[in-house]
């Protein structure tokens, strides 16, 4: 069966780009997080939409599971082949197809990376930028949109899924469909005013189709950029501070962070506020607005802006920042994973305390933080735990801490983001049964053979 599968996949993509070898099956069985391995039968790398379509058609014929994968950096094991089958590694489809500068959008293939788009825009459209997540630059745009990611323009533009303007998707039954304006016209400028079918493919953990193209919004790139860091000691103040800062409608990105290292940061709650301007005068004006919005706290000497030496400011302005990846080396063990919970901002202090308690209880190295989404409409609060991959006990502690964090996030009314398969079950437990029934109904229509990333978003 497997050799037949490999041979037939080879006919579609060429033998160079399919493997059923032990090396690929091993490496693609896991990601960098704590989820246990699940071994695929094959890994395939299509070059275009037609090849993806043929792979899916073959999978339907053979009733073999299909697992789409971008850069495989989700950390929560969503690209593991829980029930075996074919992992479709999309990274050969990494072309930037079109930039529309006047309507400020870009169309890319499903395996295009964040870093490559950043470089492309810098060279060809220096006045434009897209919202980069804190993920490493090899992370894919499609993957991040599909998990409702967020990034350094998320105060300005919301979640990355909010920045989506349209998609081309290979359905689990092999049809190629388009969503958004590109389904009606040549332009990929908006999802409205049509029925928003893009939602069928975002947040579903690859269970409803394979995204082969997508359009995303671009934004003006400022000539002058700056970051302020506001520091407080009382977590209970944070929702109001965030409310006031976002009320200025000036920041592009706001990221609270709380870590025990470096020593000077321990016990304090920091908020990085990134903003930019076309002129220095405009930049000063925006800075004044931000500072004025929270001056009351400084006057009371209960919080204030941190003086930043230029090298540190430069580090904070670096996009993407390698600091997040470096957290994986905290325990000299190459591992970290986090629960990022989408939560209401007023839960900030609860989330912070829960994170500290869990880290203390499970004795894990932690980093806590958040990214504000929209003008303070919600936040992605993250609880990150580093672990030593070579120390099974350390991995288990981190895994237990993550599970406890998922539980705590749900109890606080939050929702674990890009949830691991066990966390998906926890969410389903709390979900309105009719909502889950609708999910199942949609999936049974889209994927009658149950081949798309099975094992995810399932009750049992």
């Amino acid at each position, binding site marked *: 069966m497997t050799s037949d599968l490999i041979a037939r996949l080879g006919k579609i993509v060429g033998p160079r780009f399919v493997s059923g070898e032990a090396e*690929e099956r091993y*490496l693609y069985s896991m990601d960098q997080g704590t989820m246990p391995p699940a071994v695929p039968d094959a890994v395939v790398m299509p070059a275009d939409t037609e090849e993806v379509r043929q792979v899916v058609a073959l999978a339907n014929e053979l009733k073999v599971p299909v697992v789409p994968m971008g850069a495989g950096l989700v950390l929560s094991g969503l690209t593991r082949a829980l029930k075996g089958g074919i992992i479709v590694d999309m990274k050969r489809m990494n072309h930037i197809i079109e930039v529309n500068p006047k309507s400020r959008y870009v169309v890319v293939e499903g395996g295009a990376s964040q870093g490559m788009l950043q470089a492309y825009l810098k060279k060809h459209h220096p006045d434009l930028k897209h919202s980069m997540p804190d993920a490493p630059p*090899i992370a894919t745009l499609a993957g991040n949109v599909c998990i409702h990611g967020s990034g350094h323009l998320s105060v300005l533009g919301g979640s990355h899924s909010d920045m989506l303007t349209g998609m081309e998707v290979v359905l689990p039954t092999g049809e190629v469909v388009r969503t958004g304006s590109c389904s009606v016209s040549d332009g990929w400028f908006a999802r409205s005013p049509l029925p928003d079918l893009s939602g069928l493919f975002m947040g579903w953990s690859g269970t409803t189709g394979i995204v082969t193209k997508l359009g995303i919004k671009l934004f003006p790139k400022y000539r002058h950029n700056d970051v302020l860091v506001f520091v407080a000691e009382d977590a209970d103040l944070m929702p109001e501070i965030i409310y006031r800062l976002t009320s200025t409608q000036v920041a592009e990105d706001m990221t609270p962070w709380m870590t025990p290292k470096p020593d000077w940061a321990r016990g304090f709650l920091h908020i990085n506020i990134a903003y930019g301007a076309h002129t220095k005068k405009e930049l000063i004006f925006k800075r004044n607005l931000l500072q004025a919005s929270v001056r009351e706290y400084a006057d009371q000497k209960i919080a204030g802006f941190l003086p930043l030496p230029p090298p540190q400011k430069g580090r904070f302005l670096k996009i993407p920042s390698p600091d997040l990846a470096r957290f994986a080396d905290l325990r000299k063990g190459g591992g*970290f994973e986090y629960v990022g919970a989408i939560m209401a901002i007023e839960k900030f202090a609860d989330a912070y305390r829960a994170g500290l308690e869990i880290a203390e209880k499970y004795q894990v190295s932690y980093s806590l933080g958040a990214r504000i989404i929209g003008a303070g409409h919600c936040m992605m609060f993250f609880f990150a735990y580093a672990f030593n991959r070579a120390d099974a006990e350390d991995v288990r502690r981190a895994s237990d801490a993550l599970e406890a964090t998922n539980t705590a996030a749900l109890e606080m009314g939050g929702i674990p983001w890009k949830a691991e398969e066990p966390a998906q079950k926890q969410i389903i437990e709390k979900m309105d049964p009719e909502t889950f029934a609708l999910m199942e109904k949609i999936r049974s229509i889209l994927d009658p053979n149950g081949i798309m990333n099975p094992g995810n978003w399932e009750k049992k």
Partner: protein
Amino acid sequence: MQHEEILHRCFRCGYCKLPGNYTDINCPAYLSFRFETYSPGGRMWLLRAWLDKKIDAGARFAEIMFACATCGNCVEHCAFPEFRDRILLAFTAGKDALLEAGCAPPAVRDLLTKLQNYGNAYGKPVKKYGEWAEGLDLPVFSDQEYLFFTDDVGTWDPRGRDMARSVAQLLKTAGVSFGIIPEGLRSDGNDAGAMGETALLEDLAKKNIDVLRKYNVQKIITLSPHSLNTLKKDYPGFGGNYQVFHYTQVLAFAMGRLTFSENPPPVKIAYHDPCYLGRHNTDYESARMMLRATPGVTLVEMDRSRKNTLCCGGGGGNFFTDLLSGGDDSSARVRVREAADAGADILAVACPMCAVMLEDAMKVENLDASLRVMDVSEIVLERVGQGDC
């Protein structure tokens, strides 16, 4: 295995796959094969899995390990300070362990056998080492300032020989005092070391050191950046201490002595930084100094240059073993496309391996009507008016 204690520390974040400006994939093996297994992080995790007996050492694993071109992009761009300095060392140790286990790919085995039996990768007699210089009237090294060391590709490969002859001619024209050793020298051993055969590197190095001692060599000009690397970094450990320069490093300061033809035609040149001159030995300027000092030359930069250079795919023994060839995205083919995109008329090289790899790629890409691959010395010599030596 040496360095095995760092293998699990790789997070596989993927910074190593890209150049510092993220333009495109910059790891030759990953670019060519695209499977995660061929990325530096993939190699790290597979080595760990092999040592933990989770996978066996089969042909695929051996190909993955030996396909590493040792270009150093991963070392340059890894997000983890300290750790990154040991990435290539770990890969070399892994290759060493695979050789010990008898799992080398056939092409690697054959190359190492030739190096062992003949002292060079071409299976040629060491007595004919000086053949490349026939007709140039170059002096045998005696009391000159420098020895000109051509290594395997410059000595035996037709394209490499052209390049060696061009460099020698330019050194002569610039009045540099140098001589050659006509017989007895072996491969520099850089590739043997990069393939994990450190004992063979030591053997080759010691044999060369014996020859160099006989001639009382103190200062060496190398044709190949690979030679520069190993003569500078490895030979002192075997008792060979020399002042070593790549030819561009000597000629960059001799350009003022050259007389150029009047009104040379204008030409746009993209310079391809060789990995072993650039990333491994941090010289990004010497060749550019030569080109800037050459009349009629306009330098254009490719998207990936200096620390971000894209390897030609010939390092780590791959020039001979050819594990990275095949497919549209071999790094040499991608590189010549990049040069064409940059609007270059000439893709300038400063390494004989790069010259061969990129010239071959240019033909495969059908770019030979619009793009020429030329060594820096050939470009300069052409404008001095003695390019047909």
